[in-house]
């Protein structure tokens, strides 16, 4: 019987090969990468020490200090220190310290994640690596501790739902809108325990940063992974990173078994908004108008990409943010920051009145660097608008694509970017000659 991408990647990483493994089976598999960050990492290290004192395979371990980064208090500073000492003690060579980047954008950028990789991370948004045809999945600290100790972990091979996108790409519609549309369609538990598989020819008209928007939020539909099938965009990306010989792409078999296949014609889609307090509470932008905004927050583990920064700059260019609005922009990695400087994007942000920062998970996860007070409203291109996600449980968060977020900063309220910006200019600014 045919296999899905998820089945193939998991089976190929099993510690002992077995015939006919399929969705629903429990297996033991060796990840290529075990990812720790400064939130779940210290808990994982604590649990690890209850099992053993030696990491099974230090070369598989990657540590990123990006959440409480730079540390806003002593507890966070001690946690960061604990991770640095753990890396040294265990011979873990890859530790990305403060300012290097936010984990899920950083690892592909540095060539750590490849198509076909099995990545387990102590972070729910590890699903982001699906954008690169890899199996990424989030785990709690104890699972990570066990993987550190044994070098392998238990997995339930997930069922898969296939999502196919067809049609032409409408103005101001990004990967964020596609995934919000899907979450609205299947619900916030519509893919629980399952793998979401993304395909269809329309995806060739989006870039790999926009694939990250989508895989990143697969977990917001409950999914274990959200994996893109290899296409020309991913093949091009892999070539640019690993050279022309790269060939570990994983494709589903034509007779692979899916729980469901859902097809979308995106031609008439508009920018989408998830209203408070659920990523599934989604409406088209034409149905939301005039909501006043206190803070706009742009940038996180999948939405502080070069594409997002260009999208923000395309709207902010030559404009000022509205009175009484704060705009915080996070470049997801140091290299992206550098690139944005070179392209003049940072100048545009500063001229517009933005607070521009280096990489940090910051207020996206309600940690520090811009929390919301009671009664405040935020518009953001991040992935979660749960009650209290960015600070006060009495604040409200609207999730949007980057154009809509930037437009809200300029207008001081939620507006349709199609009403304030010219698509052909924006398109040229963001995508240049590429589309």
């Amino acid at each position, binding site marked *: 019987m045919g296999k899905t991408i998820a089945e193939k990647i998991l089976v190929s990483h099993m*510690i*002992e090969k077995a015939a006919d493994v399929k969705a629903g089976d*429990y297996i*033991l598999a060796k990840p290529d990468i075990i990812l720790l960050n400064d*939130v*779940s990492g*210290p*808990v994982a290290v*604590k*649990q690890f020490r*209850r*099992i*053993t004192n030696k990491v099974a395979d230090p070369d598989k371990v990657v540590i990123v200090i990006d*959440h*409480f980064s730079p540390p806003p*208090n002593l*507890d*966070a500073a001690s*946690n960061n220190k604990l991770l640095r000492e753990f890396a040294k003690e265990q011979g873990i060579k890859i530790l990305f310290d403060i300012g290097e980047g936010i984990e899920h954008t950083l690892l592909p950028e540095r060539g750590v994640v490849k198509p076909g990789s099995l990545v387990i991370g*102590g*972070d*729910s948004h590890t699903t982001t690596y699906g954008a690169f045809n890899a199996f990424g999945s*989030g*785990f*709690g*600290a*104890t*699972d990570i*501790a*066990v993987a550190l*100790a*044994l070098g392998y972990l*238990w997995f*339930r091979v997930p069922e898969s739902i296939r999502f196919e996108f067809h049609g032409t790409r409408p103005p101001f519609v990004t990967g964020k809108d596609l995934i919000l549309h899907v979450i609205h369609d299947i619900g*916030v*538990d519509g893919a*629980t*325990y399952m793998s979401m598989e993304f395909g269809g020819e329309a995806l060739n008209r989006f870039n790999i940063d926009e694939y990250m928007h989508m895989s990143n939020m697969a*977990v917001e539909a*409950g999914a*274990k992974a959200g994996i893109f099938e290899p296409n020309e965009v991913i093949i091009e990306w892999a070539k640019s990173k690993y050279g022309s010989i790269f060939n570990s792409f994983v494709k589903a078999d034509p007779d692979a078994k899916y729980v469901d296949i859902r097809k979308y014609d995106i031609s008439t889609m508009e920018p989408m908004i998830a209203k408070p307090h*659920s990523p599934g509470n989604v409406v088209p932008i034409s149905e939301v108008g005039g909501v006043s905004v206190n803070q706009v927050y742009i940038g996180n583990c999948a939405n502080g990409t070069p594409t997002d920064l260009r999208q923000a700059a395309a709207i902010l260019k030559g404009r000022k943010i509205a009175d009484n609005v704060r705009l915080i922009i996070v470049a997801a990695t140091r290299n992206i920051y550098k690139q944005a400087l070179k392209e003049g994007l940072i100048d545009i942000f500063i001229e517009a009145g933005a607070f521009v920062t280096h990489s940090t998970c910051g207020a996206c*996860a*309600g*940690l*520090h660097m811009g*929390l919301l007070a009671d009664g405040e409203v935020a518009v953001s291109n991040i992935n*979660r608008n*749960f*009650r*209290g*996600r960015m*600070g*006060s*449980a*009495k604040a409200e968060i609207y999730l949007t694509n980057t154009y809509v977020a930037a437009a809200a900063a300029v207008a001081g309220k939620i507006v349709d970017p199609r009403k304030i910006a010219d698509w052909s200019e924006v398109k040229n600014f963001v995508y240049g000659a590429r589309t």
Partner: protein
Amino acid sequence: MIIEGYIHVLGDDVDTDVIIPGRYLMITEPSEVAKHIFEGVEPDFVKRVRPGDVIVAGKNFGCGSSREQAPVGLKALGISAIIAKSFARIFFRNAVNIGLPIFIAPQVVDYVNSLLETANVIGSFIKTTDVKARIDVDTGIIYIGDKQFMTTSIPKFIQEIMRSGSLIEWAKERLRSKQIL
């Protein structure tokens, strides 16, 4: 093992940000985490919990972030079990891994909700009741008053982890026996 305690009722899609807000994630000590459980939505919840109490929730309990502080904090606060219509994947694993008993039992959730009109209830986001749950962990039978319910059986592989006590013990056994599989 028998679990017995008063029931706190929650709705669908309770996320881990609501259970323990991000700004407390630098805390790793369970008893300290416990002080902030559900702080944003129900500030006096921590004072309403008595050791042994049980949470009854709707679908997709524990969705969102992978933070293990969510089940760890609930357990440290005194919550002895969670019964829900369904659990989000990472929360399910985390609860099993740290030894917090969880049960999938939609009919129990519906029945408990039907009692809310007549029960003594305080709270809004979390309804603390004077209804008691009694759970026989070994058989998976749940008693609400004189009503008896079966729960969805837990997969064999996960039972193996539960029998070890926690995933930590399971891993230790594997290292001891140097088993590859």
